[in-house]
């Protein structure tokens, strides 16, 4: 990957947040003024169960360096069991990412409730740090940084 000399490469992270919990968590993180890197792009979905593996792979192919899947804590789903379905799909996605040869640190699953702003901020910080060490994703299209 080519980088402009004076500009440091910054990871680009796509986070899928569920409307009821983790999006609220991201909001709380902002309201609580917790410092977090600007590497995050949030996509709000109504339920983490809505996240198709296809969305995740598309994010990678469009240039994301890491993808976060977040939702309500198990048992707290607004739609009864949407996050259990996410868990089933995530297990498959995780295996596939490993088999494709991508580092497992590029895909994360976390359950974050609306009140856990600090947890959200810490999570984003940790992932950004990990991805910064790994460098750009090998699936990143040419010409995207």
């Amino acid at each position, binding site marked *: 990957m080519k980088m402009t000399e004076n500009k440091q490469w910054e990871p680009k992270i796509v986070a899928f947040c569920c409307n009821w919990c983790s999006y609220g968590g991201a909001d709380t993180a902002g309201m609580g003024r917790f410092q977090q890197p600007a590497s995050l792009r949030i996509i709000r979905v109504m339920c983490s169960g809505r996240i*198709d*593996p*296809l969305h995740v*792979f*598309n994010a990678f*192919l*469009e240039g994301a360096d890491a993808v976060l899947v977040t939702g309500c804590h198990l048992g707290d789903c607004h739609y009864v*069991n949407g996050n*259990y*379905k996410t*868990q*089933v*799909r995530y*297990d*498959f*996605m995780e*295996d*596939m990412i490993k*088999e*494709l*040869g*991508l580092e497992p640190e590029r895909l994360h699953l976390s359950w974050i409730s609306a009140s856990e702003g600090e947890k959200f901020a810490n999570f984003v910080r940790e992932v950004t740090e990990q991805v910064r060490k790994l460098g750009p994703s*090998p*699936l*990143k*299209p040419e010409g995207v940084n």
Partner: protein
Amino acid sequence: MIEVGDKVIGYSTDPGVRNKGASGGLVTAILAAALEKGLVEEVVVLKHINEYEAIPIITSDVEDVLASAGSMHTVPVNLAKYAVGKNVAMPGKPCDIRGVIEQAKRNEVNIDNTYLIGLNCGGTMYPVQTQEMLINMYDIDPEDVKGENIEKGNLIFRTKSGEEKGISIDELEEAGYGRRVSCRYCDVKIPVNADLACGNWGVIGELSGNATFCEVMNEKGVRLLENAIDAGYIEIEPASEKAIAIREKVNNVMLSMGEKWSEKIFTEIPDGERTQYYMEQFADCINCGACKEVCPVCTCGEDSKCTMYHNLEDNYRMSMFHMVRLMHLSDSCIGCGQCTDVCPVDIPLTTIFRRFADKSQKKYNYKAGMTLERPPFLEVMPR
């Protein structure tokens, strides 16, 4: 009377069928009886073109069924999609049967009125490659061949003059001929997922070559067999202990051969090089969609998720189409090899898909197409 779990040796009562069939014409007679006595409306069979080619047809004509008698190892077509939405009886290799069962899980096949007769399978071969092999390895004119058989690890061809010549499969495969790659590492040789598991393994003594070993797997199998006996189409006798042991032995030999091949084919690619490997393999893809079209597990139809991303303009590092399919099939791929067969740019698709599927299926202790158990990807609760 017949019961589930019975192991019998049988043959057709009609001498014509008995001589034409590969081993006693049992399967042909059962299919004909099922059709004549109204157990099914139609039957899926192969229509011979020549010794190396045949096309699958759905027919309600008994003549077509009788004409299809005999085994063909050089017709690597999957019949699963021919059973969709019909009341049929269907003979098939283990992968054909696995395909039908996967279709049934996706509500495309009504499994209650689809009758499946499984045929033992040691592997299939490509028609063109086989003819080439006959000239180069066997020194036989392909036009001269009248039948073929896989026995004791040897591939045997019979000529019209009655001559037989056998060469060991290992030797052929070393030379680059022999079975298709997906057949070499296939791990289902006896179709225990069908209603009847038939084949010539375990037929010994004077009946050898003139009768079929048949195991009754479930109630539908009982119905099929009883129907044919009542109609007077077949004669059966219980299989001896020795016959059962020999069948088991042949199966084990074939399976261990498969294991050796799978070790050879699935040599692990190091972590760091895998992304590169898949990108290079899929880079050849011209997005024709043929692999999806022939896949016996796919049921989405034309407007499916994978074809939505079927666009070369996207210019992704890896084909989105294949990424969706890899995910979709990681728990349901049956390894039939159809996708590799049809790929116009020779991507080893089945091998790639099996790399993903083997891991997932082992992890969830699930083998696609063997039972009516729900695929783990469709489960609501994590296992």
